[in-house]
């Protein structure tokens, strides 16, 4: 049977054999947790605790600012030793709350079990917001905002992203295998809020065990388990929508424009915790992997754990890494060192050796059009990059640079090693700057 898919895309080696069979392990607490106040798309939170104050696990330490923002919580009980700028995964130093764990690891006392049947849809959304749930696939978009589409854009199809198309990462895979009840409970909760006619969980065919398990568990439920062809970036929102529903999100539009909402399966699990147990989002599963780490693992880590601690827990480094990536190799963030903390969107820590990142020098474009074939958004990466590099902003915008999802497929296939994604990003920044200047 032919599996559903989307146009374009690439087939990088999936490298999931390092960790796909390893059960999730709990990561012990480090000496210090650095919880950044900005971990999500939207306005950063504002600290609402003081230095010297004792905080409980799950206590709010940063309040949300505005609608597109979420509160930030203490990942364990302990004392606030500092509120200062600390190195952040985005490359600069940003405000963070530094907590010294007291070892008790005790939850805040006002958490209780709630029967979801007793809550209204709005109450569910509010609980999700209070818990600081953001997209766990990596983008970290506040979930409560996604769950509040305007009434003129009803959601008919609810998609769950169990695809995990990034090479090396296996955290969602293990979540589906080991914590399927939490995931499915979250699916049901979100279905309750959206009231969609069709609920689908998309899973790539390279996870047959997860597909079989979920199919069995959803045998009587109105949830469709949809195996998808193995191709990067199947897990990207617009590509998942194309494969599952055949609909194309319009240029510059959002999934709600075609009546669809997409959530990651780990986000669904977080929603369950938030709504039923009142627990805020303070931990997640992170795949620590790569040829430069001694013992690759799927770790359950707390937000704020320094990367150095994760490396230690995984047996340390085999050799000095050539590159440290927080996330996957295609769209993850390269880090300057190990002194940054895990944040809510950190789905993986990838350690590559020097030999893994060997790059040939950039050559001229030979118009082979491999990038055009690979682009999942039907763009012309070579043309956009050429205009962007020559600072021709009008043409860059005309060729739809703003529709690029920065998946990296084009840079991956380019035989001339041209930095296509970086050039397109450069172009996007120029287009945005021009728009901002025009408004001034």
């Amino acid at each position: 049977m032919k599996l559903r898919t989307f146009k374009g895309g690439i087939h990088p080696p999936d490298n999931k054999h390092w960790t796909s069979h390893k059960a999730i392990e709990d990561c012990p607490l480090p000496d210090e947790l650095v919880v950044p106040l900005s971990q999500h798309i939207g306005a950063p939170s504002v600290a609402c605790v003081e230095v010297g104050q004792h905080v409980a696990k799950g206590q709010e330490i940063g309040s949300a600012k505005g609608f597109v923002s979420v509160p930030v919580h203490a990942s364990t009980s302990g004392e606030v030793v500092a509120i200062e700028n600390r190195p952040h995964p985005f490359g600069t130093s940003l405000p963070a709350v530094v907590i010294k764990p007291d070892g008790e690891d005790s939850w805040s006392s006002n958490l209780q079990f709630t029967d979801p049947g007793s809550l209204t849809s709005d109450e569910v959304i509010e609980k999700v917001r209070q818990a600081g749930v953001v997209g766990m696939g990596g983008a970290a978009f506040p979930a409560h905002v996604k769950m509040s589409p305007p009434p003129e854009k009803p959601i008919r199809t609810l998609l769950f992203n169990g695809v995990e198309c990034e090479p090396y990462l296996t955290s969602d895979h293990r979540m589906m295998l080991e914590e399927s009840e939490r995931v499915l409970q979250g699916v049901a909760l979100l279905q309750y809020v959206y009231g969609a006619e069709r609920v689908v969980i998309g899973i790539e065919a390279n996870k047959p065990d997860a597909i079989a398990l979920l199919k069995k568990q959803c045998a009587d439920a109105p949830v469709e388990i949809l195996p998808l062809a193995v191709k990067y970036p199947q897990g990207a929102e617009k590509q998942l929508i194309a494969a599952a529903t055949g609909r194309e999100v319009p240029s510059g539009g959002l999934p709600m424009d075609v009546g669809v909402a997409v959530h990651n399966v780990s986000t669904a699990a977080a929603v369950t915790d938030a709504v039923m147990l009142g627990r805020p989002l303070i931990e997640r599963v992170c795949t620590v992997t790569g040829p430069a780490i001694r013992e690759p693992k799927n770790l359950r880590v707390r937000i704020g754990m320094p990367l150095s601690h994760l490396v230690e827990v995984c047996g340390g480094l085999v050799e000095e890494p050539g590159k440290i990536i927080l996330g996957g190799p295609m769209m993850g963030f390269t880090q300057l060192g190990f002194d940054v903390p895990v944040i809510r969107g950190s789905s993986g820590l990838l350690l590559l050796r020097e030999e893994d990142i060997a790059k040939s020098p950039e050559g001229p474009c030979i118009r082979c059009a491999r990038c055009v074939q690979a682009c999942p958004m039907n763009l012309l990466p070579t043309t956009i990059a050429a205009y962007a590099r020559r600072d021709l902003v009008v043409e860059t915008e005309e060729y739809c640079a703003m529709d690029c999802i920065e998946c990296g497929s084009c840079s991956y296939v380019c035989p001339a090693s041209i930095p296509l994604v970086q050039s397109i990003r450069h172009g996007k920044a120029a287009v945005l700057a021009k728009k901002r200047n025009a408004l001034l």
Partner: protein
Amino acid sequence: MADLLVILVSAIFVNNFVLARFLGICPFLGVSKKVETALGMGMAVTFVMTVATVVTWFVQYFILIPFGIEYLQTIAFILIIASLVQLVEMVIQKVSPVLYQSLGIFLPLITTNCAVLGLAVLNIQKDYTFLEGIIFAIGAALGFTLALVLFAGLRERLELCAVPKSFRGTAIALVTAGLLSLAFMGFAGLVKG
């Protein structure tokens, strides 16, 4: 009817004024950096060519020949074309200052554009009737516009290429024009003569 079609096709493709007859190279190279400017220039030239044909035809057959002053043909034609171009220039400046700016010096240069004069003279040489003359003019103008727009498109693409330093600018443009001309020779044989 078929003859008119033959004249049209011949003027646009087979004996394209720019690429086969090599007339009007100045605006061809000068105005073809962007497709919009090329289109604008093409339309201006179409207007001038068509009206020029009409007027010169009348002048030839009702003034020059009856009065026996055919030797004044060149001067008279140039005078007519110059006035027409002046008119077009004024209209464009008023109606679309942007186009006026982008065409710049090339607009008045349509006056000395050998393509327009060549068209007028060829019309007389080929002994075309009034209707044939008009079709010929429209065909020539369309062919001119076509060559210009095609070339502009090519040049826009050339902007993005890593051209070797010694070839940059006019050099590679001329090479490309030559290749385009060769391509149009593929139409030879479509029409006899």
